[in-house]
């Protein structure tokens, strides 16, 4: 049956029966429809499940305020007797943790700033400016998503070794200056961006850079926020590359530093948990503040 035939009124249709079927279907939907069927019953599963998801973190915070003897007690203590802050003071005073934290801030902060500028410029160029080789370059950039870092890590180490950057923050910053994902995020944002505003700017005599800087970027704030949040979380949490590129304690990031707690502070669980809390706090803070953008970015990257 072609679509034209389908649009023809069907002869001999029993209107009453038809209406009855629709009514019955509506009732069925009200009873068992997708969005309507006693949705609140879901809480019975969702509530315990979501508590299980955050419980380890609650436990982490609680133990960070316990004394060592409280932690080692069998059966374990659930609530600390009083707020013992010895774990925090020992982590901050007698380990290199403050250095690590600062290093992580420097690396992640630089990564965010650099990616906001470089990824948005590149994304804008691919979306708007016609230049020789743009299609090939865009395809090559997207193809890098298929190259796992584990494949390139050994030569990357050798490259940074030759550059004399191993064991410096530079080795951590350079690979984070820009990213294929960031370029792609900005590229897809600028593709759906109204062209008229830029044209108006060009007619008013702005250069391309001025148009980009004064007209496009301020309007790209939602996309920039999403990119910044993703970049920060990724850069802050990275362990594999810093573990390889950095060998001296003063240059560690928090994640690498945290792993050294394992053997060294084996019995000092309050310090370990205090360090874990301090390491997790910044990303959780960024996530809680920018959650909406974060979710948009990860779902947007998938749909695109």
């Amino acid at each position, binding site marked *: 049956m072609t679509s034209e035939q389908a649009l023809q009124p069907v002869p001999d249709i029993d209107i009453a029966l038809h209406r009855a079927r629709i009514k019955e279907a509506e009732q069925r*939907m009200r009873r*068992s429809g997708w*969005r309507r069927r006693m949705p*609140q019953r879901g809480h019975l599963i969702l509530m315990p499940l979501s508590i299980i*998801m955050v419980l380890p973190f609650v436990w982490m915070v609680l133990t960070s305020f316990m004394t060592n003897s409280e932690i080692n007690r069998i059966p374990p203590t659930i609530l600390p007797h009083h707020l013992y802050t010895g774990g925090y003071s020992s982590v901050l005073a007698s380990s290199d943790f403050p250095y690590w934290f600062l290093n992580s801030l420097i690396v992640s902060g630089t990564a965010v700033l650099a990616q906001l500028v470089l990824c948005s410029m590149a994304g804008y*160029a691919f979306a708007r400016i016609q230049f020789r080789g*743009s299609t090939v370059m865009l395809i090559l950039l997207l193809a*890098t998503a298929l190259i796992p870092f584990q494949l390139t*890590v050994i030569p990357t180490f050798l490259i940074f070794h030759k550059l004399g950057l191993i064991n410096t923050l530079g080795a951590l910053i350079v690979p984070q200056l820009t990213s294929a994902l960031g370029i792609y995020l900005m590229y897809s944002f600028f593709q759906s961006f109204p062209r008229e505003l830029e044209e108006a700017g060009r007619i008013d005599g702005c250069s391309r850079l001025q148009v980009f800087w004064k007209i496009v970027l301020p309007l790209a704030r939602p996309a920039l926020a999403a990119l910044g949040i993703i970049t920060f979380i990724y850069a802050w949490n990275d362990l594999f590359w810093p573990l390889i590129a950095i060998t001296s304690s003063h240059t560690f990031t928090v994640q690498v530093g945290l792993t050294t707690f394992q053997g060294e502070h084996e019995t000092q669980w309050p310090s370990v948990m205090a360090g874990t809390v301090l*390491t997790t706090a910044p990303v959780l803070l960024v996530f809680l503040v920018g959650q909406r953008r974060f979710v948009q970015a990860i779902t947007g990257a998938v749909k695109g």
Partner: protein
Amino acid sequence: MAAIPDEATVARDANRRIRRSGNLAGWAFAGPSVFIVLGLSFIPMFWAGYLSLTNSDLVSGGHFIGFANYAALRSDPMLRQAFTNTLLLAVLYLPIGLAAGLGVAIMLNQKIKLIGFYRTCFLVPFVASAAAEGLLFGFIFDPDFGIVNAGLNAVGLPRQGFLQDPSEALVVLAIVYFWTQFGFNIVIYLAALQDIPKEVLEAASIDGAGKWSTFWHVVVPTIRPVTIFLLVWGLIDVFQFFDLVYTTTKGGPLNSTLTLVYYIWELAFNFFTAGYGAAVAYVLFFTSLIVTIAALVYGRRNRVAL
């Protein structure tokens, strides 16, 4: 005598000028990113290919030894173990991870209260770092004073070795990994479900479809592209499994949690057999590439845009 240029020449010159200025501006805007991203991916990729044909010890370049590394890895029991462990991890995690993610996404897709609260709770483990989470779960699953064993004890069940027991460690890691990735699967599925037009579901209902048949014949096929994406993403992610292993078991006990990437890392940066490590990395690369391309081709054939 200079001829007055005709209209076509003027237009051609103007076009050329615009194109040239576009070239310049385009490369000025995109150049730095292109240079860094391509330079830090394609050059090392080919370099790793060359390294895999040498006996490099990371410090010196080593000698060209042809395909000897590839010949050796065919009879490497550690590699076989790492491969088996990685696959086992995928089998343990992926089906449950996706099914549970879809299940919760369906619950959240209803007109339910507290949706923001739930989404936050589910995403927190995905956002926190694997290093912190590994340390945390090493503590929670500690055989002596961990809270899980205390709980088992309290209900009269025998204590378990968990991460220190070769037969349990990988399962515990799969559980922890599930916990970290759960929120991501939920959020992606939820976005896909919200994109299903209401009319489609209504049409299904008018055609007499019940709850289950709507789910199997309308919802599941509609979100298949997302399922394929999550499957490929999950597989690639499992193939890169490192952080949690490093912060909990370091591949032990008895290599029961040795994963491919952990093995590559050990080969290159602990045992200083960089050439051989590069060969293993290439095997990993081709395996994940084949999986990805197979999924893309499958998606394309089923008219799925990935």
